[in-house]
């Protein structure tokens, strides 16, 4: 059987069937393939297989210099685009020992939180679509449009911003616009509360999520889960607690932790992060200083540097290595979904076949990030 061909022995009783899940599936935002070994509607084992979106973007460092590479890296994924751009610029700036001005750090933090906001709203919509609640899905995405309009107004693009460069930002956002953004977001809070109440309190939704896909704290630490998957199981892990990026230390930031470990807990973590993002943006706009938004960066890249960024989906590594020319020697992006796939495989063992879409969505798979 296929499972044995992959070099691993499968031991179980009863009649086994292998159901291929993906790469094309109505609930999947991006193609991932899982071979589900199923025994009478209970999944015994899941074997992941990726590579459908592999574009080999990391190899482009050989032909694009470090300034142009920023555009390539931010196009790894459409949802986590700003995080990638910032992580890349931060690691190249670290390797070149460039200090970015304070205002640029504040603006980057604000844009990152806006990015997190739209990503979580997108995910809530996909989760609703996952259990068939289409109208909730549409409303989540309608609210997300307001955030995308804000992003287009400030950076020029809805999903790909092209605003981060090595040394700072390319365009400034003036204080008036920032205050208007805060007003718009505060106005959205009531609407978001209505929608998220449905996720957290409606019985039909809770039935699909509570108790499904439990990941205990020990398992989460053993399997090195990251992001809301880990925080939903009680592991306190958030890269915004380090001072490697952004100004979170000046914004009184605390990570959102839940202990139940099931889909409901992970959903609750993300919903709480939505509200927390709006608060963080408000605090950042109140404290943002005046000043330049970039420094001139000239010269070649020498040395290596690792930055870790808290993307909406978890911890992402950005490893930049330069060898004295304007082309980087290596640019490695390790995205959170890459690390959550083993956790997914573990939670799938023993679940019902009908729960598989919800479980796959609950780790927030962003496969284009995984495969670059």
């Amino acid at each position, binding site marked *: 059987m296929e499972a044995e061909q992959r070099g691993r022995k499968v031991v179980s009783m009863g009649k086994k069937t292998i159901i291929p899940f993906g790469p094309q599936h109505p609930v999947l935002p991006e193609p991932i393939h899982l071979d589900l070994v199923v025994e009478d509607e209970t999944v015994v084992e899941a074997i992941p297989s990726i590579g459908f979106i592999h574009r080999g973007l990391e190899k482009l460092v050989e032909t694009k210099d470090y300034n142009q*590479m920023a*555009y390539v890296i931010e196009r790894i994924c459409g949802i986590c685009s700003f995080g990638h751009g910032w992580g890349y610029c931060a690691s190249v700036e670290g390797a070149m020992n460039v200090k970015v001005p304070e205002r640029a750090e504040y603006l980057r933090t604000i844009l990152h939180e806006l990015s997190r906001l739209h990503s979580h709203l997108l995910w809530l919509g996909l989760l609703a679509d996952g259990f068939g609640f289409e109208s909730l899905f549409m409303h989540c995405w309608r609210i997300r449009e307001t955030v995308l*309009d804000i992003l287009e107004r400030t950076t*020029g693009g809805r999903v790909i911003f*092209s605003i981060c460069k090595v040394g700072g930002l*390319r365009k400034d956002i003036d204080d008036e616009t920032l205050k208007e953004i805060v007003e718009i977001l505060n106005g959205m809070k009531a609407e978001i509360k209505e*929608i998220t109440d*449905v996720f957290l309190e*409606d019985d039909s939704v809770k039935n699909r999520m509570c108790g499904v896909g439990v990941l205990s704290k020990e398992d989460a630490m053993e399997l090195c889960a990251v992001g809301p998957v880990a925080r939903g199981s009680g592991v306190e892990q958030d890269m915004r607690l380090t001072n490697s990026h952004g100004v979170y230390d000046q914004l009184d930031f605390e990570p959102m932790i839940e202990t139940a470990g099931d889909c409901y807990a992970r959903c609750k973590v993300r919903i709480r992060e939505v509200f927390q993002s709006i608060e963080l943006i408000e605090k950042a706009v109140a404290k943002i200083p005046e000043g330049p938004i970039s420094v001139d960066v000239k010269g070649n890249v020498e040395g290596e540097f690792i930055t870790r960024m808290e993307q909406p989906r978890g911890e992402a590594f950005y490893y930049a290595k330069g060898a004295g020319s304007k082309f980087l020697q290596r640019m490695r992006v390790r995205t959170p979904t890459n690390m959550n796939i083993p956790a997914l495989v573990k939670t799938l063992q023993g679940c019902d076949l009908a729960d598989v879409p919800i479980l796959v969505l609950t780790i927030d798979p962003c496969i284009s990030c995984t495969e670059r």
Partner: protein
Amino acid sequence: MKAFKFAKTVLKSMFKKPATLMYPVVEREWQDRTRGQIGIEEDSCILCGICAKRCPADAISVDRKDGKWEIERMRCIQCGECVEACPKKCLNMEKQYTEPGPEKVIHVHEIEVKKPAKPAAPKADAPAESGDAAAEASADDADDTLVCDLNACVFCGLCAKNCPCDALKVDRKEKIWELDEDACVKCGACIDKCPKKCLSFGAPAAGAEEAEELAKKVEDSEAADENKAAAAVVPEFDAEKCIYCGVCENQCPCEAISAEMDAWTLDKEACIGCGACVDVCPAEALKM
């Protein structure tokens, strides 16, 4: 038992306007900063090719001889690097996206090939010690190589700062002005920025005698560096006209000016008399 929590939202949305637009019947309102597509002002383009070099997607190609500026619309990622890089600021980011279509279009713009103005006939018998300028002028195929009239140059370094290709090296103390010919794309940004107007494409008007004088001057000035700085002409400030915009402070290559509100000061020791501040003042409040 909490059921139908969503009912309120659904009922409300039945009576509200739909959130979607009947596109393409209803036109979309574009935002000011939307990065749609690149537009070019053909009259200002000098075909320097910097936009093509900086483009991360290799969407632009510039043909200097035939006078063509081409862009492959579907390769363009609307990043705006070319807009920032253009020394003549002839590219701009338009708000409207490229029209979708069945084939990948390449838009070709015909640009008039402008030859840089040739100065008066160069002296063919310039002596060997007259520095880099004459050596470059006597090369056969370097008719339009950038040259600097070292006589007039004050080594302020503004040309080097504004060079988009980092082709110039200027050292004020050592009185060095050097050009990396391979990097120079002859865009002319330095010629525009030079406050003494001593840069040009082609041989300078300096003749043999002036060149010898120049060599002597360089020796003299090395010995009397401080004197030269102190004796140089300094800008005169008119407090009535000044609007405290701070552009002179930004432009000064030696950071000799401080333009705070109601307190414009000049550090005479640092000033080298290049006159860049005079040229750039929008209120004409400075005079040498």
